[in-house]
């Protein structure tokens, strides 16, 4: 395949990380919770997945099962982090931003501790390659770049579409949106606000956790991958504003973000740009600068139907007027 083809497939594959992260964050935000802990959740999801994979490989279970257990591990670890966040932000009514930032500090650091401990997560070199191979279904064995699109990529697309359907076409979705817009009204209508907030955050965090696993094992397939998840987590949070709280839009927009993110890796192989080492740093700025432009443009346009959930960032206490 040509350079351009490689570049595009590479970006397409990366976009799944953004799709998972942003879809998870959208579910949480629809319940009125700005979860700034998403980077930490993604990291811990990645760690949980890798932990499960390394346990499964020690047991010697068949390949497809290893991948599934990995997904399960990431899902559970992400959900646990979501439960932790909900406990503080929903039950204890702590400040959401502070709780989220603490989650990020804690999650990122704990993952870094876990990932370098050989006795806990053992995925070094050949074992890692073996783990990556488990995720290559359905294009396994193809010689070209297309094989990097594993089943988790397609799962991401399905999750995003499914989330859109649930949010817009089901009663549960309607109730969830009501909780995010005005919890007092939702409460009066007989919706269990606390339960919705908890479930949305836990499921959302589980999905975001998959993003971490996908990035470490599937996209990067490297021992060093865990160091760079945090930035992707923040980009996922920012992407939510770009897609106007619509999960299906994360698929094309995630691709745009991925193109900007991966171009720094590919730019050195394009002869006419003649980039030097330090220029790649400037290219690495691109997704962040692009996000800033998006934030500004969306705030300047400021359309009525493109607003965040009305009670985003506020704790709900029934006895407040």
């Amino acid at each position, binding site marked *: 395949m040509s350079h351009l083809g490689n570049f595009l497939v590479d970006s397409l594959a990366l976009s799944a990380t953004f799709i998972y992260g942003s879809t998870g964050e959208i579910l949480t935000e629809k319940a009125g919770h*700005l979860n*700034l802990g998403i980077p930490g959740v993604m990291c811990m999801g990645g760690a949980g997945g890798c932990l499960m994979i390394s346990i499964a490989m020690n047991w010697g279970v068949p390949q497809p099962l290893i991948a599934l257990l990995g997904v399960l591990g990431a899902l559970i670890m992400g959900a646990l982090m979501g439960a*932790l966040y909900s406990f*503080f932000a929903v039950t*204890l*009514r*702590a*400040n959401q*931003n*502070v*709780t989220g*930032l*603490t*989650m*990020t*500090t*804690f*999650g*990122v*650091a*704990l993952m*870094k*501790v*876990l990932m*370098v*401990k050989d*006795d*806990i997560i053992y995925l070094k070199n050949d074992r890692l390659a073996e783990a990556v191979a488990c995720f290559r279904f359905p294009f396994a064995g193809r010689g070209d770049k297309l094989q990097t699109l594993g089943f988790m990529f397609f799962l991401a697309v399905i999750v995003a579409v499914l989330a859109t359907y649930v949010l817009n076409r089901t009663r549960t979705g309607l109730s969830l949106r009501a909780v995010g817009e005005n919890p007092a009204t939702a409460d009066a209508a007989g919706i269990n606000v606390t339960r919705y907030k908890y479930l949305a955050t836990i499921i959302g965090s589980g999905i975001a956790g998959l993003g971490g696993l996908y990035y470490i094992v599937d996209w990067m397939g490297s021992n060093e991958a865990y160091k760079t998840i945090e*930035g992707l987590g*923040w980009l996922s*949070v*920012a992407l939510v*504003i770009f897609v106007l709280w619509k999960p299906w839009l994360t698929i094309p927009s995630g691709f745009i973000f991925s193109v900007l993110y991966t171009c720094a890796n590919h730019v050195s192989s394009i002869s006419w740009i003649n980039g030097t*080492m*330090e*220029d790649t*740093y*400037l290219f*690495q*700025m691109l997704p*962040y*600068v692009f*996000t*800033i432009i998006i*934030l*500004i443009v969306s*705030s*300047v346009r*400021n359309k009525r139907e493109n607003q965040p959930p009305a009670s985003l960032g506020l704790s709900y*206490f029934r*006895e*407040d007027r």
Partner: protein
Amino acid sequence: MDASKRSFLPIPHLAKREKMNIFAAMGIRVLAFVLGMLVCGIVASLLVKDISFNWKSMKSFYYCFYEGSFTTNRKLLAYIKDLAVLLCIGLALAPAFKMRFWNTGAEGQTLVGVLAAILVNFYLGGSGNPDIALGDLPLSLIMLVAAVLAGCIWAALPALFKARFNTNETLFTLMMNYVAKYLVSFSIVRFLTNANSSGSMKSLSSGRLPVLFTQMPSIDKPGTTFKIPQSLNDYLIVGCIVLIVTVFMFVYLKYTKHGYEISVVGESTRTAKYVGISVKKVIIRTMLVSGALCGLAGWLIAQVDKSVSTESSVHGQGFTAILVAWLARFNPIFMVATAGIVVFLNKGASRIATDYSISPSLPDVFIGIVLFFIIGSEFFVNYKLKFSFAGKAEEVSK
């Protein structure tokens, strides 16, 4: 009250507290801190092979925390320096957060401060251009001005857009962190590295701070005096500068018109508008103060370790400082204590990480755990948990 009507299961019920006795509130927080530290011990015994959950092992584990900061003069001075830098960033954030402007970009604002300072040092201090070599003090001052300006610019951008278009400042400032990070990586390679050597930075030796402190009483050998070397003298100067900033910020927030306007805008922008405060002006002005102090922190960092500056020179302190400021309720005097606790945890856990050879990220795990407990404890300060019994509730309804 008729006891026989009571159900055995109490029904929990929340109520907001009016105002808690300050000592009781402090007691709850201290309890939360102690519980957090206990959980740190348990987590450590799970993560680290050489630490097990028994008396002896735990004792040496907790002793490491003390050992990390307070056993020698050198450690104490390093503790003061770290505390001062973190506190300075926290002080920068306090006015912004009091105004409900979620400045998550302190990391970037500090980092551009570092960058501006080392660039000035490089080009005016004789390393980049041998023709210009300013003396130590003027060079230091120009570095300070450059760092403060850079911090201001980095903070003013999101503030302008927030004031004009109500752009989401949380994410804007967050993204500016990464722009700053890559800008620093780029600038160090492009401008500050020896082109022909292995990419190491040129040493920046000029622009030293004046020597003010030469000796202090020794801690580990009582009765003797400890001679303060040049580098540790810088640490103490950093501490003094931040002490002045702390007092300034306390007065600024509490006793000036600006401080009053900040708290009004923070409580309600509508009220501010009705009493004739220009919200836009307050937002931009406050963020300029915030950015300037971050720049100052950047200068302090650049002063103490110029030649080893990298894109991670700020070590995530921009984020930790948010928690420091918030935990102290944006009160500069309390922030000395919260920053002190965070640095204490950080130093202690770093010591444990090296002693037991685990990842250097361990401190952040402990900081996260303890912060979770303190955040959780705020609930008990703000709310009352009442348990009503079925019988009692009926009685009320009668």
